């Protein structure tokens, strides 16, 4: 990495500080603003007097509020986001354990959506006015309006129950001890339906964005020049127009990480996928506040990172964009 890019990354990371500060402050405020004793939010409502006394001391709850706040921020900077009372573990390690499964689902869905969405968008743009274009555009609006978890339920109904093509839940076959390729295949088979469910809305959105960006380029001089050179329409679309349309597409993709994570969480619940979704579901049921607050922090951080990656991609892809 050259020095200027490194400096840029550092500067952008510093810009994320206000957001993380606001997020932590919201968490802290909620605990103290909520009806009831703050200790029940931090340590649950199960336990004897001694337990609560220990916990009160641990969180400085008898100290002035400013000191508690300072302690909270300091702990967060050190990576200590609290202790889950239902799991009896630090929340950060619990979340980290579930991240790979969720990431696998998100990345697969995003890859699928990128291919189908960009290709579909190009197709819609090339057949503007015709029935193919209208069909794709209507499908895209429909896909964009679909609740992901409902799509998941429908997919299970048709492709798992009725047709028996795919497993209905989990990431691996229960009580199987597959290894190597066999295991990868097993996971892949389990991944198909959740990934499709999660990707449909993104496909819809990407078709719309690609189509719209291509339309905006329609009158551009370089497009006219390319056509005047006698290039094939296919070459003009893919080599000249799509390259320019990619930047707005990447911006949209980067801004969708929060939505994608939300979708993943919901899809995971439908498919009993062992990621963050089930964790969040349980945490909401048991009112495991430290875990819920940590999920808020982690999701915010992931949005920040995604934005950073998007900006770097922007700089690398478009020579006109400078490290601003």
């Amino acid at each position, binding site marked *: 990495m050259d020095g200027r890019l490194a400096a840029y990354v550092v500067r952008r990371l510093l810009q994320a500080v*206000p*957001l993380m500060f*606001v*997020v932590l402050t*919201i*968490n802290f405020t*909620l605990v103290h603003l*909520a*009806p009831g004793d703050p200790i029940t*939010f931090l340590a649950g409502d199960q336990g004897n007097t001694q337990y609560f006394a220990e916990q009160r001391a641990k969180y400085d709850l008898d100290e002035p509020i400013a000191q508690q706040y300072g302690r909270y921020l300091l702990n967060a900077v050190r990576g200590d986001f609290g202790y889950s009372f239902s799991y009896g573990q630090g929340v950060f390690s619990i979340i980290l354990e579930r991240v790979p499964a969720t990431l696998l689902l998100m990345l697969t869905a995003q890859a699928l959506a990128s291919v189908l969405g960009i290709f579909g968008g190009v197709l819609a743009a090339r057949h503007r006015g015709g029935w193919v274009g209208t069909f794709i555009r*209507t499908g895209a*609006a*429909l896909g*964009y*309006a*679909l*609740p992901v*978890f*409902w799509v998941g*339920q*429908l997919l*299970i*109904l048709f492709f798992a*129950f009725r047709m028996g093509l795919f497993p209905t839940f989990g990431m691996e076959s229960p009580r199987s001890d597959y290894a190597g390729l066999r295991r990868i295949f097993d996971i892949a088979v389990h991944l198909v339906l959740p990934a499709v469910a999660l990707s449909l809305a993104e496909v819809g959105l990407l078709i719309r964005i690609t189509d719209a960006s291509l339309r905006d380029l329609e009158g551009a001089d370089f497009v006219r020049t390319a056509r005047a050179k006698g290039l094939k329409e296919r070459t003009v679309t893919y080599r000249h127009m799509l390259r320019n349309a990619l930047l707005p597409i990447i911006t949209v993709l980067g801004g969708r990480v*929060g939505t994608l*994570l*939300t979708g993943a*969480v*919901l899809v995971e*619940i*439908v498919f009993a996928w062992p990621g963050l979704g089930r964790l*969040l*579901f349980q945490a*909401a*049921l048991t*009112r495991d*506040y430290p875990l*819920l*607050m940590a*999920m*808020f922090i982690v*999701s*915010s951080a992931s*949005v*920040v990172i995604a*934005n950073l990656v998007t900006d770097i991609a922007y700089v690398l892809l478009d020579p006109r964009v400078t490290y601003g």
Partner: protein
Amino acid sequence: MTRYLRQPMAVAGLALLLSLIWVALFAPQISSSPPKVGNADPLIAPSGAHLFGTDDLGRDTFSNVVYGTRAALLVGLVTAATSLALGGVVGIVAGYFGGYVDDFLMRVTETFQLMPRFFLALLMITVFGSGLWLVSLVLGLTFWPGTARVLRAQVLTIRGRDFIEAARAIGAGHMRMMLRHILPNAFAPVVVIAATQVGGAILTEAGLSFLGLGDPSLVTWGQMLNDSQRFFRTAWWLFVFPGAALMVTVLATTMIADGLNEALRPGR
């Protein structure tokens, strides 16, 4: 207006939304039983008597879907209104005053824009309870940055025009400038984003309800989808109909937003 009405999809979207509003208003007349009241046999498949079947407690699914329209539209509209109010003030002030005010307000806007709304709303609900109004307000707090940015961009294009200069010359104050002269001319694109926010808010609330965090005093489609999970293999009608209602509602808002966007495109 005529440019909007010339688009079949946009008109269809508007018609859909008006029908949904009609359903929400006349829910007691349309449904065959009050919401959440079980007075039929459990788990009857769709038939003439129970159009969408019944659930495990003998509640009529059609009636619940009809009543669910109320919660969905309420969430959508209150969220969009909150977002419009907050984002409107921030956007117009930032665009009108420019300079440091603009810099500061845009920093704040960016910060809020990055906040993952689903996770924030989920946290707020578990702490304060899942009243529909609270959910709508929290969602509004996370949707406003979009409104603010669109309005600001629009104000920036208007600020330098002659009629603004003229208004200033005759001594119009800041408030008057913003409300009487700038806002009416900058408002159109904001309506587009408000329409998309209605759909977004409805989907987000449905997701929260699906997690079991819906308002317990109301029927919401997300709750129905959550309840249906246990009868997944046996009673398809319990999740097909509420989900379809959700899809149709969001689709209507998308079609309206597209139509407005198209109608506002310059030079066509």
